[in-house]
């Protein structure tokens, strides 16, 4: 057995819960496909948040009971969902008008890389043999009033995904304002990346050693 030292880190559900804390009552929110969808499970009791999905629904509820799936009522990941009382449907141009027109308060997206200036790369790794697919990522990234990213700080091979400048193809320019990772939460400001939260057991210096981006301590 190796005695490899592992960093203290929040679980995916803990990151989701950390994001959920920052979503205010009454917010209209779009949760990106994958990890961000977990945020819906952690919204604090009594907080009313309206979920928007790009394929033409607001007021989206949780997944249906087994056997009650209706595949005419799906989310952006094409999985079956439900509609809460008060929710409604609309066509695609209206749905993306809601994004582009600045009517969504928050969107939470996954990312391959986020640059300190808020640039986001989350749709393509640029690999020459990859089949490109962009979906609604570019519209969401630049449309919502606040674009948050939720990701692990490091790749599987240990490189920081918070970077000085994205090397992967961009999804949007200067659009991300906050990054929630498994070890810390960062605000991206004109003064650079400011740490607003660190996982217990990790020092600021340890965190700084994980990323080439110069960090400020704003806790």
């Amino acid at each position: 057995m190796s005695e490899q030292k592992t960093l203290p880190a929040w679980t995916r559900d803990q990151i989701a819960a950390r994001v959920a804390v920052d979503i205010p009552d009454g917010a209209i929110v779009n949760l990106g496909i994958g990890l961000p969808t977990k945020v819906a499970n952690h919204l604090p009791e009594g907080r009313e948040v309206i979920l928007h999905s790009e394929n033409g629904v607001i007021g989206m509820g949780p997944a249906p009971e087994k056997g009650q799936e209706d595949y005419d009522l799906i989310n952006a990941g094409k999985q079956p969902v439900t509609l809460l009382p008060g929710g409604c449907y609309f066509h695609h141009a209206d749905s993306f008008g809601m994004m582009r027109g600045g009517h969504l308060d928050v969107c939470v997206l996954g990312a391959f890389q986020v640059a300190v200036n808020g640039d986001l790369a989350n749709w393509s790794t640029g690999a020459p043999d990859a089949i490109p697919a962009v979906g609604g990522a570019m519209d969401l990234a630049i449309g919502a009033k606040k674009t948050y990213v939720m990701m692990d700080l490091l790749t599987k091979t240990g490189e920081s995904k918070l970077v000085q400048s994205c090397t992967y193809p961009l999804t949007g320019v200067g659009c991300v304002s906050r990054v929630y990772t498994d070890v810390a939460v960062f605000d991206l400001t004109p003064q650079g990346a400011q740490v607003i939260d660190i996982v217990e057991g990790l020092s600021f210096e340890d965190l700084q050693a994980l990323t080439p981006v110069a960090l400020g301590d704003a806790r």
Partner: protein
Amino acid sequence: MINKITPTIEQALAGVHDGATVMIGGFGGAGQPAELIDGLIAHGAKDLVIVNNNAGNGDVGLAALLKTGRVRKIICSFPRQADSYVFDELYRSGKLELELVPQGNLAERIRAAGAGIGAFFTPTSYGTELAKGKETREINGRHYVLEYPIFADFALIKAEVGDRWGNLTYRKTARNFGPIMATAAKATIASVHSISELGGIDPETVVTPGLFVKHIVKVPRTATGPAGFKQA
């Protein structure tokens, strides 16, 4: 008398010609007019340009159409899915041209075509590879990319209820691209699950006014199946 109710899919699709641009509604399986796509396959038109959000799932519907080799080009936002192996193979072997469009630009370009807009500036994709070579402009301090409408010869869409004037309602998120594609095509063909007498659809609930629709074909109701994601 106006009567857009057409007895068979074959009759509704009779005018489709080789080289046509055909919009097909749907987001994954929801709103995908499977019966009309099967009709298009049976019809045999080739050299088609298809506009859809995705590029088919499994071996049915749009994927089956692609498999016939009669599609020259597809304009879509999200071709790669867990079950898009038909598209993947055609694309990788260079047999199918892809125009990748951010989903909101796809929707707005379709809407613009139907609404008589010559072109529009959108912030989406500014500064990205998908805006390469496109005209840009700074307006009130924000950067925009110029995008042009997407017109179609035909739109095949799935609706819920129709009447002989062509008025349509939809079901849940199966609405998605249907209402805007109906406006952007020279001829829109809608499948419906029920046909109402004129006045039978509450006018407050009509989503697509009949003037956008050329043919309505009634098809049996079948439950929409899962598509587009990895099932546990």
